């Protein structure tokens, strides 16, 4: 048992926290959003230059980290700062998928992604798929040694900023069959690709993408025909870990802001933090945040486990984070009073992110169902795992 970070991870954390403290103020973030940009491209380059994107890839993929703990360290810090730059969408989700499926064949693209020069996006969710990873109705029809893609994708993280899309499409099978899904690399400028970007409630950006007779070459297919589901699931496990760690970081800051405010805000001549009604709730929240931390650690430690064990942990962690995230958001706003609801104050942005995280990669109920389905067949307690 060892719950300490290793030396490299401590350095990574401290460096990233210092950088974000210096460069990523709440005001700067609001300015970027108010200007209509989806994120600060200069800052994203600087993050890449610091090696933050490399930290989520393994050495053989061109990075220098990539373990569950590395991801946890990075995303907890990104969550603390409220980072909206496309680390999750481009590096972890799409980049991770590319690396897992075809690191050798696309090492140049991967390098550019890790360097922050190229933005990748996974175009996978569809209007009817909700949280079901196997639900793909976009078609890939083979014709003359090429494929023609037709369909609609939604909630594509940073889709409008992406240079290259990873598009999931069905070569065979029914709408929800796990078998039959393939992934294709599609430059976003390809004829027939149209993309509408939009802001999300939490300040991140996504896009809706339609594929209208988009022609791609055989060589643009990643991995084995019809076999992409397993890779999609594994990539979502990593992305879920990243997202949950981000939530943990956001919870820590929301809590810290609330504690500070309760000490400073006076009503009835005393700091409101002296009211036991509020103290007990804050104490209860702290207990839940520690549970959230443990849940993130659990998932970090089981990313490399067998599929059933891994997915069991994905769902357990995401379910718990969803519950605690909403609790922390709601309680922190309530304990602040009116000020907690203002756009100007940072808390409301952390609260929005915490709540909306439950709408990404499956919510509390979705993962409760999955946990029930998976936990019957796996041992989730007691066995050893290496978080790296």
């Amino acid at each position, binding site marked *: 048992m060892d719950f300490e970070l290793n030396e490299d991870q401590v350095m990574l954390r401290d460096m990233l926290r210092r950088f974000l403290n210096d460069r990523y103020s709440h005001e700067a973030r609001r300015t970027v959003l108010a200007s209509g940009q989806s994120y600060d491209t200069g800052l994203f380059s600087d993050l890449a230059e610091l090696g933050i994107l490399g930290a989520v890839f393994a050495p053989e993929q061109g990075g220098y980290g990539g373990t569950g703990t590395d991801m946890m360290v990075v995303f907890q810090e990104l969550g603390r700062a409220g980072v909206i730059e496309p680390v999750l969408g481009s590096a972890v989700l799409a980049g991770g998928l590319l690396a897992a499926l075809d690191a050798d064949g696309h090492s140049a693209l991967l390098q550019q992604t890790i360097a922050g020069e190229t933005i990748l996006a996974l175009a996978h969710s569809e209007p009817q798929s909700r*949280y079901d990873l196997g639900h793909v109705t976009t078609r890939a029809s083979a014709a003359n040694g090429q494929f023609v893609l037709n369909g609609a994708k939604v*909630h594509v993280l940073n889709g409008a900023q992406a240079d290259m899309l990873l598009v999931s499409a069905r070569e065979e099978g029914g709408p929800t069959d796990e078998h039959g899904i393939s992934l294709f690399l599609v430059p976003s400028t390809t004829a027939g690709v149209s993309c509408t970007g939009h802001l999300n409630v939490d300040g991140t950006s996504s896009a809706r993408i339609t594929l209208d007779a988009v022609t791609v070459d055989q060589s643009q297919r990643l991995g084995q025909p019809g076999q992409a589901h397993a890779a999609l699931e594994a990539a979502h496990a990593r992305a879920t870990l990243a997202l949950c760690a981000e939530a943990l970081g956001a919870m820590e800051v929301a809590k810290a802001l609330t504690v500070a405010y309760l000490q400073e805000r006076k009503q009835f001549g005393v700091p409101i933090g002296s009211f036991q009604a509020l103290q007990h709730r804050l104490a209860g929240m702290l207990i839940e945040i520690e549970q959230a931390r443990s849940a993130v650690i659990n998932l970090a430690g089981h990313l490399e486990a067998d599929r059933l064990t891994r997915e069991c942990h994905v769902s357990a962690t995401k379910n718990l984070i969803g519950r605690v995230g909403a609790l922390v958001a709601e309680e922190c706003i309530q304990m602040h*009073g009116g000020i907690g609801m203002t756009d100007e104050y940072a808390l409301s942005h952390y609260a929005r992110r915490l709540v909306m995280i439950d709408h990404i990669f499956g919510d509390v109920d979705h993962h409760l169902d999955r946990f029930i389905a998976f936990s019957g067949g796996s041992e989730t307690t007691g066995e050893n795992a290496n978080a790296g």
Partner: protein
Amino acid sequence: MDLSYTPEQDAFRAELRGFLAENLSERVREKVRLGKRLTKVEMQDWHAMLNARGWLAMSWPRQYGGAEWDAVQRQIFEEEACRAHAPRIVPFGLKMLAPVLFKFGTEEQRQRFLPPILSGEHWWCQGYSEPGAGSDLASLRTRAVREGDHYVVNGQKTWTTLGQYANWIFCLVRTDPDAKKQEGISFLLIDMNTPGVTVRPIVLIDGEAEVNEVFFDNVRVPAENLVGEENKGWTYAKYLLTHERTNIAGVGFSDAALVTLKQVAAQTMAGGRPLDQNPHFAARMAQVEIDLMAMRTTNLRMISAAAKGQAPGVESSMLKVKGTLLRQELSALLRRAVGPDAMPYLPDFLDGGDNADPLGPDHAPAAAPGYFNMRKLSIFGGSNEVQRTIIAKSALGL
């Protein structure tokens, strides 16, 4: 014990239903149903429509143009209006200022201020809270100093709901800084077009500026705009707060929200079946519905006690806490039901742009902003913590 309505009450409900069906435009109904933002004119039109029928001032005495409805009738109205997706009634003039004028104002003030509330000429807002005076309202510092036949007002109010549309504000101001804090407060009516009044919007977590800061810089207010006696404002304010709380359970809103939630859950596919057939989600919906069924009766029990002349007291605190928790839970369930489609933030759609694309189902864009907006329910009108303290003291004697 008899849970049924009287034939008169049933007939009253039918009359309301017919009126709403006939008069409320489809456009406004749709906007309310989908949680879109209403314009000032749409809110004014709704008031005018009710006023034309004599129903705007539902609890006012007839001699002042009111309908003199009793508490049960008002409850029936709330249910029917919510059911029809009518806008809410802007309460500040009608339900907050007017009761104070009836009880503590002069006849002259009633003649001067009540008719413009009905006609829509005056739009009132509530100037109580200040940056330093929230739950501890009595610590307010906005100063009013008597100079001849005027008061000169300096200070700041905040969280002023819909102040951007208002032309009058009723304020609590400090007229005696040396008295005990509750004893130096007065109730003053201020024309917002007076020089020195500045309104600044505050954008909230849902992206909308529904509240404002209001600044007073040497604002000269005629002394005749003082309600009641100088330094007695706290008594009037407390009276008003109990009025603010009588309708606070919001059962009508919860009923309407439950109907919407059920429709959305039936339409939404999740994991190959409608969401309302997912056992977890179905259980959550059933749980709120069960609570709401009891809440409806709790509300009616307290209303009929009030109708028998028992002043709303600690009961209104209970209604407020439970009623707001239910509304918040319903908004959380709607947000969840919508799923990933709750993510996009689409202000053009929410503002009612006819060509704005909801990106998903049309009920989706307002789900998350609506949920965040509902956080206010447990903060304003006396926070739920403050209400629990009242309950502990008054009902439990602790």
